[in-house]
């Protein structure tokens, strides 16, 4: 929302702080300003001039104009190319030496003639968007007088105004400025200009909840033409496109009082009744902006006998728009329910200056104030205009809300500052709250109508009013008193941090992928898109689904980095999101590590990840498992820890990579956390040294070392301390389908050292057991 500095000064007589300072004060007291910019500073020197004589230049569309530019500049000669440059025209003269923004105006020879300055269009001056010809000023404008005034435009962040319907107009902001500057506020409205007597036209509101109020006036003897330059300049400064005197007045009043208005051409309406109703299902509506909309009953329309003439609170209709020939108008000033307007506007993707204001919950009391202001302005811009009859109005005023009780000790305590009662009263009254003393130490505060729609309902809201006007710099810093109590410890989060640290220490770098995957990504890894929780309104297909696995994201990281690095290690901790009917999805924290190598057969990487699993889950085993689609068909295992399956260890299917191999470890961290660390238990150290012997077992090629170790351990019995894998061997003299696996077995007893005889007996026992399982043993 843009605010004119000069306009605020008009509404706060005596305000003399410079624009930048005012901007800073608004930021500190009321709402965040994004900046302040000078508007058309050249207008200081641009003045009205009358064209005395026009001489055509042969072979050129330009003419030589002699002008009377008033007492300061006197008679001058300029070369002008505008089609409307004619004798007797009163227009805008830009003297040489002045800059219009980046454009420097110089005295120069144009088409062979001396041109001392220039005549300018409204667009060149920046006061409207008309570049067709030079500005046309009223005939009675005295040469030498200013065309319009320069200004400063303060831009306030709209987000900081969402709760303040009143600040969508200059008068509301001026009230703030007056309050924090200790100056009086001028009310531009004279309500006596709206006679109470009605009119032959009537208004009917079908649903007062959706449209609380509809007020209107009828005017005749209207002349439609451009509005005065000052008005155009003001609108242009605020980015409100000047259109015509009638429309400009409605926009100016909106910019001043935050009340959107609309003017209908009365002669294009049917009947004598305005109906505010819900749209019919499928009702079509042609709007002023040239678009056509299909409406539904949740939208509110303004209709006459024959159909919709405006989309309530959003935009007027094309059929009843003001045109050059308009002579009679109906001027609407209505109030609409914020939620209804917000829904309509976002559904139809149609945000207008009106809808933006109504969705902040405007004050229904304001409609007649806006009409009164418009009556006054119409008289200036459309001489001869006549008000016909008086106010047409439909309204069921809601009872005024009960005053809010404000205990002053509560206020002091919450603010952390003792504020004298009189200061509290003065601040609230400067913002036009009505303050009574309910009982000693407690104020009863009546909220003005423009703050009562939504903004201020409880004492905490009043605290803010007082606090911000005083300024928080006055509040002394005070250490909070808090009980000495150890906070709850989030052990699961700490566990994740531990896992992160250990993994990083093993050489892995952490990545942070999105929670989204695309359908295509999901399919590529064999996940069914329908198993995923779907995003209803993704911006792009990349965000269509919530991830069910960290793999697609990790795969992207692997393929991207593989373009630059021959070997790397990555990991991520993030949630898998599993949808559940009728409940929030189950978000399961997972750990995924990936090790990529461009060279080699990939086996070392898998073993390194197995070691990582063993580091994270001491004693974890890999149990060969049937490979999933994205896994190497012969290199896939479940990770088993203390009897529970916690994840998978596999090589990524080589077809998923352009080159190289990637091993992946995927662990369910929630399960790992819930199982907790293995309980620690002390076992007395064995006093007698252990003894060891080696065995080589001849077995088939796919016999698992893990299974053999388990068998040896079982056969050795209680005295077994360790079974260590030494090496494997294939080749002569073994058959081609045979391998030999060598192990070192360490045994000990609690009460003595084994004798050679005992050792031989143990060894033979193990060998017999293995032979019984069908294995051969090598010497």
């Amino acid at each position, binding site marked *: 929302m843009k605010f004119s500095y000069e306009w605020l000064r008009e509404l706060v007589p005596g305000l003399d702080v410079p624009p930048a300072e005012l901007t800073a004060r608004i930021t500190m007291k009321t709402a965040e300003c994004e900046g302040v910019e000078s508007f058309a500073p050249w207008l200081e020197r641009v003045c009205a001039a009358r064209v005395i004589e026009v001489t055509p230049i042969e072979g050129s569309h330009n003419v030589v104009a002699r002008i009377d530019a008033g007492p300061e500049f006197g008679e001058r000669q300029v070369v002008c190319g505008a089609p409307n440059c004619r004798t007797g025209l009163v227009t805008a003269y830009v003297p040489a030496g002045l800059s219009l923004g980046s454009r420097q105006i110089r005295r120069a020879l144009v088409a062979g003639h001396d041109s001392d300055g220039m005549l300018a269009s409204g667009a060149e001056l920046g006061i409207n968007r008309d570049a067709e010809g030079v500005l046309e000023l009223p005939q009675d404008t005295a040469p030498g007088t200013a065309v319009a005034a320069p200004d400063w435009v303060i831009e306030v962040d709209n987000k900081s105004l969402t709760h303040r319907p009143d600040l969508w107009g200059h008068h509301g902001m001026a009230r703030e400025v007056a309050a924090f500057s200790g100056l009086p506020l001028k009310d531009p409205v004279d309500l006596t200009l709206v006679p109470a007597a009605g009119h032959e036209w009537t208004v009917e509101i079908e649903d007062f909840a959706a449209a609380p109020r509809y007020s209107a006036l009828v005017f005749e003897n209207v002349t439609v033409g451009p509005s005065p330059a000052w008005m155009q300049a003001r609108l242009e400064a605020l980015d409100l496109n000047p259109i015509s005197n009638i429309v400009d007045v409605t926009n100016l009043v909106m910019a001043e009082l935050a009340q959107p208005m609309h003017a209908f051409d009365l002669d294009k309406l049917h009947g004598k009744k305005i109906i505010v109703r819900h749209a019919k299902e499928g009702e079509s509506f042609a709007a002023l902006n040239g678009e056509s909309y299909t409406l539904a009953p949740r939208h509110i329309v303004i209709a006459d006998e024959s159909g919709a003439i405006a989309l309530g609170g959003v935009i007027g209709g094309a059929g009843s728009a003001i045109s050059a020939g308009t002579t009679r108008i109906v001027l609407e000033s209505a109030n609409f329910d914020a939620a209804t307007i917000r829904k309509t506007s976002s559904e139809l993707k149609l945000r207008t200056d009106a809808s933006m204001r109504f969705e902040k919950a405007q004050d229904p009391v304001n409609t007649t104030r806006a009409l009164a202001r418009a009556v006054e302005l119409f008289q200036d811009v459309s001489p001869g205009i006549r008000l016909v009859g008086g106010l047409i109005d439909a309204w069921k005023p809601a009872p005024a809300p009960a005053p809010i009780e404000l205990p002053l000790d509560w206020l002091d305590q919450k603010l*952390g500052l003792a504020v004298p009662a009189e200061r509290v009263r003065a601040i609230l009254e400067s913002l036009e709250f009505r303050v009574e003393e309910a009982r000693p130490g407690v104020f009863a505060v009546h909220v003005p109508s423009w703050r009562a729609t939504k903004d201020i309902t409880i004492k905490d809201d009043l605290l803010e009013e007082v606090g911000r006007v005083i300024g928080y710099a006055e509040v002394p810093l005070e250490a*909070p008193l808090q009980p000495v109590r150890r906070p709850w410890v989030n052990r699961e989060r700490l566990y994740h941090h531990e896992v992160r640290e250990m993994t990083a220490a093993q050489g892995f770098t952490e990545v942070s992928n999105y929670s989204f995957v695309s359908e295509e990504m999901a399919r590529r890894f064999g996940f069914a898109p329908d198993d995923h929780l779907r995003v209803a309104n993704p911006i792009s297909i990349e965000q269509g689904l919530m991830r069910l696995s960290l793999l697609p994201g990790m795969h992207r990281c692997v393929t991207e980095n593989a373009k630059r690095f021959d070997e790397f290690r990555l990991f991520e901790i993030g*949630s898998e999101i599993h949808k559940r009917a009728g409940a929030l999805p189950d978000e399961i924290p997972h750990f995924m590590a990936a090790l990529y190598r461009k060279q080699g057969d990939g086996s070392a990487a898998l073993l390194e990840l197995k070691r990582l699993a063993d580091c994270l889950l001491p004693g974890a085993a890999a149990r060969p498992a049937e490979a999933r689609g994205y896994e190497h068909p012969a290199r896939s295992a479940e990770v088993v820890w203390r009897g529970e399956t916690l994840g998978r260890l596999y090589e990524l299917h080589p077809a998923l990579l352009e080159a190289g191999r990637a091993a992946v470890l995927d662990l369910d961290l929630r399960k790992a956390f819930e199982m907790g660390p293995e309980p620690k238990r002390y076992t007395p150290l064995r006093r007698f040294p252990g003894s060891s012997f080696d065995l080589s077992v001849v077995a088939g090629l796919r016999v698992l070392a893990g299974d053999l170790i388990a068998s040896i351990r079982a056969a050795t019995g209680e005295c077994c301390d360790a079974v260590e894998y030494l090496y494997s061997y294939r080749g002569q003299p073994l058959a081609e389908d045979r391998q030999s696996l060598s192990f070192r077995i360490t045994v000990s007893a609690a009460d003595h050292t084994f004798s050679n005889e005992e050792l031989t007996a143990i060894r033979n026992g193990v060998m017999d057991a293995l032979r019984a399982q069908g294995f051969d043993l090598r010497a």
Partner: protein
Amino acid sequence: MSIADTLTELETRAAALLDDAEDAEALETARVEFLGRKGALAGISKEMGRLTPEERAQVGRLLNGVKQNLEARYETRKAGFERAALDARLAGEWLDLTLPAPGPRPGRLHPLTQIMRELEDLFTSLGFAVVDGPEVETEWYNFDALNIPPAHPARDAQDTFWMEDGHLLRTHTSPVQVRAMERFGAPLRIIAPGRVFRNEELDASHEHTFYQLEGMMVDRHVSVGHMLYFMKSLLAAIFGREVTVRLRPGFFPFVEPGFELDIQCLLCGGKGCPVCKQSGWVELLPCGLVHPNVLRAGGLDPEEWNGFAFGLGLTRLVMMRYGIDDIRHLAAGDLRFLRQF
């Protein structure tokens, strides 16, 4: 020649051979010749049987003396040869220590993880619990419970990803305020760092996924003054130096009053520079006193309890700290980026 003379002569000869041996092999030959089991000294000792006991004692002493002398010479020379052999072997083991060392180095934690850990430690030391909340939230926790009813304009400001099942991706970490009040009651001190989502187009400064840290303190008599004190201490800890803060009005439905907290620009000290857009102040975080409706939603009586809450943009903090110019690096997984932290 008496045995004594023979011994003396033998000692002289053997000493010369041992002392002059050219290598370990010659030394060993000399040792065998004189000191070996069948060597010259052993031969003499065999002959001692023929002597009288007095002579035997005398020659015995002499013999021992010679033997010790020769053995000592032998040991000295032997040690010398061994040392020389070791030196020669080690000299051949010259190693170029400027060679790069193989094997993986520790990886890096993501910069967001690093800053989260740092802040978690800081807040834990201040008595705060670190609480998690889900990424997929209910409309109730994300909006209604935070005093943002349906059709509230503040919902527009937070472009929301909606799920097909009617849930949404949390647009801020604030839902954890209500979840924490429900879970822990009051008094309460929590932070909730985590991932949040806004339905925005991606560019150098806008992400649909970023990180926030929510903070909340609830007690019986919490004031704006307490909040200011706390924020100032907190920011001093985060920035590692004293900071000047100011509060100005800011609108957030879940706090009343609501503030924007600015810190005096750390670069120019408030004089004005490009970073603070010449204003001397940098907008840092929104905060405020918890709105009574939010306390109620969390099951607390606002006449009994109140508190303050704030939200810290972790992604922004990381970018400020390291001068990262493109937010998209954070989720790109590019090792060239990640290895810098």
